[in-house]
C-alpha cells in the first residue's frame, strides 16, 4: 500500500499555493498568519541541524470585497457575461457604503544565521519579499453608473468622490540583525517594477428625467510608472515574550520606506460639462467638435517630468496572545496599512493536538471585506520542519457567493 509522504503533501500544497499566487489579482494567494504560532514557546536556538540557514518560506494570496462576490469578481477579471442579478446583488450588499475590492499576494523568505555574530547575542538575518497588491474603491453611484447605467436613476446626483484604483508590485531584499526573542531589524533595497493609481477627487453626474439637462464634472488625477523605481525600506519586529508573563505581544513593521519613481506619467482632469445637449456645430463643445480628432486631448493634462518620491504601502501588525491553558490560547491582532481601507482586526482561538499539531479558528473584520471566519492548521514534522496552512473564509472556498478567498502556506525549518 502506498503511504502518504509528508514531502509529497507539502509539494502538492505548495503547488496549489503557488498556482494561486501566480493567478492574477482576483485569484491571488495570501495573508500573514496572525500572531507567532510558537511565540509562547521558550526561545530556543535553531534546532535544524542541516548545513543551511534556518529559514521560513511563506506564500500567500487573498482577494476580498465587501460587495462583490467571487462569481462577479471572477467575471470582471477573467471575462464572461455579467448577469444583472449578480450586479443587483452586489449593489444591495453595498448599500450606501463605499465598495471596496483589494488583493494582496506575495512570498517571503526569512533566514537567519545559525551562530551568533562574534561574541554578541546578535545574529545576521535577512529576508526577500515579492509583493503585489491592489486596492480599488467606489461609491454606490459610481457602481450604478458603470454597471447599470444612468437610466435607472434619473434626477439623482451621482457622487463619484473618492473612487479610486491602484496597484503596485515590488521586491524587497533586506539584511539586518536579529537579537534575542527573534527581535529583528532589517534594511532592504526595494525594486518596484510598476505602480499605477487613479483617483477621482471630486466628480458628479446628473441627468434629469426630461433628458434635457446633464451635468458632469470631474476632478481626477492618475499616475503610472514608466520606469522601474528603486528605494529603501525598513522591516522590524519586536516581541514581548517573558516566561513570567502570562501573555505575549508582538509588533511587526514591514516595508516602511520609499521609492524614487523616475519620470512617472501623471494625468490630471479638471472639467465640468453642464448641458441640455450639445449644439450641432460651433466652437467649444459641440457634436461636430466631438467628432474631431484630438478633441479629448484638451480635456486633460499629461506630464512626465522629474521624479516622484512615493511611500511604499507598508504595514504595521500588532498582536496580543494570551494562553488559556497549556494547550489553548487566544490571540488578537490588528493590521494597519498596505492600502487597506479599514484596519484589519483578527481575533482567534487555537489549540494544540498532541506534540505535532496545532489548529485555530479566527474571526476577521475590516480590511477590504466584511466579517468572515478563518481557520488554520500547523504540523510540526518530525524532522524539525513545520508546515502551516491558513484559509480565510474557508466555507467560501466551495461557494461562488463568498466575498473573497485567501490562503497562506508556510514552510519553515525550526
Amino acid at each position, binding site marked *: 500500500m502506498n503511504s502518504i509522504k509528508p*514531502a509529497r503533501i507539502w509539494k502538492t500544497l505548495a503547488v496549489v499555493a503557488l498556482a494561486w499566487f501566480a493567478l492574477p489579482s482576483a485569484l491571488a494567494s495570501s495573508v500573514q498568519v496572525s500572531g507567532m504560532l510558537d511565540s509562547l514557546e521558550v526561545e530556543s536556538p535553531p534546532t535544524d541541524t542541516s548545513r543551511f540557514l534556518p529559514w521560513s518560506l511563506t506564500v500567500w494570496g487573498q482577494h476580498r470585497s465587501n460587495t462583490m462576490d467571487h462569481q462577479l469578481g471572477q467575471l470582471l477579471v477573467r471575462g464572461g457575461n455579467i448577469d444583472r442579478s449578480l450586479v443587483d446583488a452586489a449593489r444591495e450588499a453595498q448599500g450606501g457604503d463605499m465598495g471596496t475590492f483589494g488583493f494582496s499576494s506575495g512570498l517571503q523568505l526569512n533566514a537567519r544565521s545559525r551562530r551568533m555574530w562574534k561574541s554578541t547575542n546578535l545574529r545576521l538575518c535577512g529576508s526577500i519579499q515579492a509583493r503585489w497588491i491592489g486596492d480599488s474603491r467606489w461609491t454606490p453611484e459610481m457602481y450604478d453608473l458603470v454597471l447599470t447605467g444612468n437610466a435607472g436613476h434619473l434626477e439623482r446626483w451621482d457622487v463619484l468622490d473618492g473612487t479610486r484604483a491602484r496597484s503596485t508590485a515590488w521586491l524587497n531584499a533586506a539584511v539586518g540583525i536579529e537579537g534575542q526573542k527573534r527581535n529583528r531589524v532589517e534594511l532592504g533595497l526595494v525594486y518596484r517594477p510598476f505602480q499605477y493609481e487613479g483617483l477621482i477627487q471630486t466628480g458628479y453626474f446628473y441627468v434629469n428625467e426630461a433628458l*434635457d439637462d*446633464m451635468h458632469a464634472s470631474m476632478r481626477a488625477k492618475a499616475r503610472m510608472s514608466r520606469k522601474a523605481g528603486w528605494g529603501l525600506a525598513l522591516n522590524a519586529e519586536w516581541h514581548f515574550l517573558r516566561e513570567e508573563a502570562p501573555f505575549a505581544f508582538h509588533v511587526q513593521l514591514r516595508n516602511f520606506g520609499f521609492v524614487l519613481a523616475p519620470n512617472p506619467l501623471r494625468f490630471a482632469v479638471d472639467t465640468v460639462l453642464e448641458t441640455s*445637449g450639445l449644439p450641432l456645430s460651433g466652437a467649444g463643445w459641440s457634436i461636430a467638435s466631438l467628432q474631431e480628432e484630438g478633441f479629448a486631448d484638451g480635456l486633460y493634462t499629461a506630464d512626465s517630468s522629474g521624479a516622484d518620491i512615493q511611500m511604499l504601502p507598508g504595514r504595521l501588525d500588532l498582536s496580543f496572545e494570551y494562553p488559556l491553558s497549556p494547550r489553548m490560547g487566544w490571540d488578537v491582532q490588528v493590521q494597519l496599512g498596505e492600502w487597506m481601507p479599514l484596519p484589519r482586526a483578527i481575533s482567534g482561538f487555537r489549540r494544540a493536538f498532541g506534540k505535532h499539531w496545532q489548529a485555530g479558528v479566527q474571526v476577521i473584520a475590516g480590511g477590504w471585506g466584511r466579517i468572515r471566519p478563518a481557520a488554520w492548521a500547523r504540523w510540526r514534522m518530525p524532522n524539525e520542519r513545520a508546515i502551516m496552512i491558513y484559509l480565510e473564509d474557508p466555507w467560501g472556498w466551495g461557494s461562488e457567493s463568498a466575498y473573497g478567498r485567501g490562503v497562506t502556506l508556510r514552510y519553515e525549518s525550526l
Partner: protein
Amino acid sequence: MNRTQFTYLFREKKGSHSLVVLVMCSVLLCFFSCSRQPTTWEVDIALPLVDDLLDWTDVIGDSLATVESGSVAVIRFDGVISELDIEALTQLPDTLVAQELTPDFSGGPFQVPPGAVLLNTQEDIVFQGIDQQFKSIVLESGRIEYSVESSTDGYVEMQYDFPSVTVDGESVELYVLLPPSGSGQFQTETGVIDLSGASIDLTGVSGNKINRIASELVIGTPAFIEDTAQVYGSDSILVSMHFKDLLVQQVSGYFGQEMLDFDVEQKVFDSAVFTGGFLEINPSRAMLSFNNTLAADIRLDLDALQVDGIGVGHPQLGTPQFISRADWSSGEVQPGEWNMDLLESGPAIFELLGYLPEFVTMQGEGLLNPLGDVSGGQDFFDARQPPQLQLDLEWPLKGAIEQFGVSQTFDFGGLDVPQFEGDLVLRLTNGFPVSWEFNAEWVNLSSAFVPEYLDGTVPSFFDESGDSHVIEWRIPISDLRLSDPSQLIFSARMDSDGDVVFTGNERLRLQVAIEGTHQVTVE
C-alpha cells in the same frame, strides 16, 4: 562524510528539485491564467445629445449681423461686404539680374595677386513690366535667390551691396568667397536672402529715378589669403540675383491711371437653406458706402445694381462718382467717402430681397487718378487697409411672412455605442409666434437602412387652441444605425396670418436624446 550528513544533503537536494518543479508549474499557470475572454454587461443609458436652436441669426445667416431684441426686434448689419484688391499695386514682377565677368585676353595664365579688384561697379537694378512709377515699397514677403560661379584657379571674393534695401534697419549685403576651381570646373555658391519686411528705396543710385534698386558689386581676390590666382582667357565669374515673389505691403509713387474692375457679387440668401417664400422687409436705414483708403483719387462708374438678375434703378447709377483721395499725412488713414442710399432705389430693392434672392450684384469700374498726377508722385497705398464697400442696414422685424421656408442638413459622423438597442428621442419646441410646418428626414449614407421620415406642425407658443408647442418623436435605433454616418435633413415653413411682430427672442429648438440598453464590452 558520515551517513547523517549525507541524509541531510540528500534531503535538501530533493527540496531544490521541488522548488524547480514549483516554479515551472507556477509560471505555466501564470501563462494559462493570462488568457481571458471579454467581460460584458448591459447598462441602461439615457443621455441628452443635441440641443440646438434656430433663431434670427440663422435666418439672416451672417455673422456680421446682430439682432437687437425689443418690442420690435431690429436686425442690424454694419460691415464690409467687399474689399478692392489691386494686384498692380501689391505684386511686383520677378526680376533676374546677371553679371558675367570675363578677361579681355586669351591664353594665359595671368597672375592675379591677393587683394586685386577685378570689378567694381555701381548700378541700378531695374524692375521691368511695372506701369506705375514707384518710389518706395515695404514688402510683405519676397526673397532674392542668388548664385555665384567661378572657373578661376584661385580664390575669388564677391561683395554685393544693396544700400537702398533695408531689413530691420540693416542694409542687405552679400559676401561670397569661392575657393579655386579645378581645370574646366566651376566653384558655385547659391543661397536665399529673405526680404520679408524689407523697406526698399526705388529711386536708384541717383536718388531721383523710379522702379530701380541701387546696387554696388565688387569682385576680386581676397587680400587675407596668400594665394596668387591663375587667370586664363577662358575663365569667367558669373553672378545672378533673382528677385522672386515680391508681395507689397506699402507702396508710394505715382500709380498712373489704372482701371479697376468693380464687379461685386454678394450672396444674400442661401437657396439650400432658404427654400422659398416671402419675408416682408422694410428697413429704416440702408446705406451703401465706399471708403477710399488709397492716397489717389478714384472715379467710380457704376452701371447696374441687380437682385438675382433683376435690375434696380437708382439716381447714382450711370453717373460718374468722384471719390477723393485718402489723407495719410497723420499716419492714420482718413478715407475719402462715397455713399448710396438704397432706400431711394426703384423698384425698391428690399421688395425684391423679400423674395429671398441668392445674390445682389453691382457692376461697374473705377479709374485711379482720373485727373492725372495731381499729387506730384505722392500716391500711397497700404495693402492692409484696402478700399472697402460697406453696408449699413437697419431692419425692424415686423411684417407679413408667407410660406417662408428654411432647410438645414446636419451631418453625423456616427456614434460608437456597441450593442445598443433603444430609441432616439427627437423633440422640437417652437418659440415663434407663428406655427411651423416641418419635415425631417434621417438618412444613413450607407443606404443599409430605410430613411426615417417625420412631419407635422408645431403650433406657435401662444397658440389659442392650447396645443403644446413641443412635440416629440421616438425613433427605434440600434448600434449599427448609430455608428453609420448619417444626415438629418430638416426643413420647416412658417406662414403668418397678416403682419406679425417679432421680438428677436424667437427660437426653434431641436433636441435629440438617446435612451436604451448598451452592452459594455471590456476586452
